[in-house]
């Protein structure tokens, strides 16, 4: 039996519709023998794909298409609409510097507001006409002779581009965890990233499995709605207080009238988060300070010694994602809530059986169990030069050059590629440097009319050697299991350094690193 899986599983099973009609495929193939390639083909209309589009436009490149499997933009923020969903990096930093929003209502905005911002980006930069909805990419192949990438969808449609950008998101696929007996459970099941807005929690007995980033946001909201809430925790995480407050009107006005003041705020937030790297990424005296802050937060909010013990992590802070919340601990102590730390033995028809022998009967189980993260594969087959298949090459763990290019796969750019993950700062800060790097590559391809712009194998190898050496010294590799690591403990996810270092790494496009044709 594989028991409760409170963190993302390392398989890559997609939840996207997979039905494929053979006839549709045939007609599509017949009708379009040679698809006219656009300059840039982008997969995914989340923050990354849309940001890419904006930067291309700003660089004067209008000839691009975005393929999105869903029927709406927004990615993470379209999918994660559970009650309480919000960013945990301040909005002024969790937004694009090239498209500031003076109107954030709070320091940490909710999912809906972030999605609103994304819609605003689409409107403001006139991206709508570039997006092809309901195009679920199932294959991406490179034709070296033509210098063209072709994306094939589940319906057999083909789209081509001289360059391709994989912006399908690191956390966009999810499934119910493989807990024994999950198919026996007759009650209602909801995954946090596919919220069921029609389900009424009033008067219901509800279980939440998982106490990670999503779980701790859902719990304080559900405890207000449900009759009774049981929270099943496998490993407690470090929880830091969250300085969340509503933005006063004068502040919004100031940001609007004097954009420099918002930039200054962003800088301040940026450096605050950068300094956190010292505590979170490496084991330093600041790590102890951060742990102390979290412990004090726990002590202040939880009076019962045993509950405090149950909530105290036994790994170095930063080894897993640091959580931020002011209302999670209080929510667990509400009269109608209960934290359960017994391991889950199995699900049964009526609820969850834990190892202390008791069946916890519930009407509904909410799985806040994270995402299917693939460390050693690709979400769909990616085929490069001479029939190379990226997933095969990544068996032992994903590797790339500067997180964005892979040798053997020319003209292909990935956002959120291997070793680009931020542990302490906004993902969008990292994304901005990736987008600008990709624009430089695309410009070179178009300007010099290249068929192939491929990073050299040895350059990539050298880069990864340093990367893994630096990673070995970080907290992520300090011994706890997390979704950052493969089963063998290989870290293909995180960037071992400051966001500033990452930005510096991405700042120059070194032509000598590439082979051209």
């Amino acid at each position: 039996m594989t028991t409760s899986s409170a963190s993302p599983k390392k398989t890559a099973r997609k939840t996207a519709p997979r039905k494929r009609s053979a006839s549709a495929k045939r007609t599509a193939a017949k009708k379009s023998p040679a698809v006219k390639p656009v300059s840039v083909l982008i997969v995914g209309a989340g923050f990354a794909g849309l940001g890419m589009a904006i930067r291309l436009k700003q660089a004067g490149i209008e000839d691009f298409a975005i393929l999105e499997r869903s029927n709406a933009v927004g990615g993470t923020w379209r999918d994660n609409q559970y009650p309480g969903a919000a960013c945990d990096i301040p909005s002024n930093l969790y937004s694009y510097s090239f498209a500031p929003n003076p109107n954030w209502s709070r320091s940490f905005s909710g999912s809906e507001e972030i999605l609103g911002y994304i819609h605003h980006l689409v409107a403001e930069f006139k991206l709508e006409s570039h997006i092809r909805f309901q195009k679920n990419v199932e294959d991406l192949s490179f034709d070296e002779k033509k210098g063209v990438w072709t994306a094939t969808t589940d319906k057999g449609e083909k789209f081509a581009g001289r360059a391709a950008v994989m912006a399908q998101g690191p956390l966009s696929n999810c499934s119910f965890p493989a807990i024994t007996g999950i198919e026996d459970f007759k009650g209602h099941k909801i995954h946090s990233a596919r919220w069921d807005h029609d389900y009424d929690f009033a008067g219901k007995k509800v279980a939440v499995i998982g106490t990670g980033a999503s779980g701790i946001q859902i719990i304080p909201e559900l405890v207000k709605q449900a009759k009774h809430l049981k929270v099943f925790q496998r490993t407690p995480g470090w929880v830091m207080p969250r300085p969340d407050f509503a933005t006063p009107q004068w502040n919004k006005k100031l940001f609007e009238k004097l954009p420099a003041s918002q930039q200054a705020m962003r800088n301040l937030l940026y450096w605050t988060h950068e300094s956190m790297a010292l505590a979170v990424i490496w084991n330093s005296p600041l790590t102890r300070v951060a742990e102390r802050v979290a412990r004090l937060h726990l002590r202040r909010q939880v009076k019962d010694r045993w509950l405090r013990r149950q909530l105290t992590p036994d790994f170095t802070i930063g080894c897993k994602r640091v959580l931020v919340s002011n209302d999670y601990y209080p929510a667990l102590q509400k009269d109608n809530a209960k934290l359960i730390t017994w391991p889950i033995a199995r699900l049964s028809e009526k609820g969850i059986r834990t190892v202390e022998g008791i069946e916890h009967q519930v009407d509904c189980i909410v799985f806040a169990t994270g995402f299917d993260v693939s460390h050693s594969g690709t979400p769909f087959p990616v085929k490069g030069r001479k029939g190379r298949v990226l997933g095969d090459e990544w068996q032992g763990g994903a590797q790339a050059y500067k997180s964005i290019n892979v040798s053997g796969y020319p003209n292909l750019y990935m956002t959120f590629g291997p070793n680009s993950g931020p542990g302490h700062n906004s993902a969008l800060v990292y994304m901005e440097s990736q987008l600008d790097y990709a624009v430089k590559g695309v410009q070179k391809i178009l300007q010099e009319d290249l068929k192939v712009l491929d990073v050299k194998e040895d350059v990539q190898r050298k880069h990864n050697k340093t990367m893994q050496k630096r990673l070995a010294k970080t907290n992520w590799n300090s011994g706890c299991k997390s979704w950052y690591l493969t089963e063998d403990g290989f870290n293909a996810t995180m960037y071992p350094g400051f966001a500033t270092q990452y930005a510096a790494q991405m700042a120059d496009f070194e032509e000598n690193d590439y082979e051209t044709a």
Partner: protein
Amino acid sequence: MASIDLDKMLAKIKSTQWALSDIDWDAPGAELITEEQWPKLKDFMADLMWIEHVGARAFAAMAKKAPTDTLREIYTYFHAEEQRHANAEMALMKRWGMLEGDEIPEPNINLRLVIEWLDRYSDEMPVYVLGTVVPMLEIALDGALCTFLLETVKDPVCHQAFEKINDDESRHLGVGFSVMEMQGRGKTFIGATKMLAPLLDPRLMLGIASYVPLLNKMRDNIITMGLPEERLYAAMAKFEKIGGRTEDGRRNPWFQVIRQHAKFVVDRNNRAYHMPVDGMVKLTGLIPRRALPAVPSWVKELTYQPTA
């Protein structure tokens, strides 16, 4: 006997889970408890379920200190399994009409002291201290108390429950002895002097001071119930035999300490040991309930109800 493969053991543990609702607690057979048996059985069961519960808490402490991830997870399961035993034993008590309403049996004063100690200090104890005490208690439970119970009680539901409990216990013992041997692997593991150092730790002394009278008191309860003393000797002999079956095991200084102590406990003729300890039992009996702090909240997690 070679040490067991802990990863395989963990997989085995995960695949052999059971729940209270696997047993029909209302099945016929409860009437087989004789009137004469009932009051003694009630005390005995209360002791037993408390030992399970206290053992559960000890495993929780060991999980915190476990040297490997696998062992940590195993101990996390054992913590829950001991709780399951306590819950199942309470369910039996409920079946036999030994619980008033939803009451948890009242812990005696010696238990209260041990609970208090576990709550305050057990998490700070090195894993090898509890790692030796626990197998000793388990073998006493397994080898003496439970077999005796099953010989005395005819109720089939009781047999059904203990079949499951004993299955779990055999795994607890397997892991327990295997870990004791690991710890005895002197040079590679940890020095004997270093291992015994906690003996001088006042926190551990407090623990011993609360634990020692508990054992004596329980031994007396068991004997009142009719358990032949030889059974306890036999159990201790088993502990000695398995714990000392290898060089590594014998080299574990804690094994030596506990083994010696266990011998003292069962040997009622050893007046040098029992005079002061029985004195302590009497003394602890004088501690007013009010002097003890409130029971920690982990104690309130006990339940005889299969579903919640």
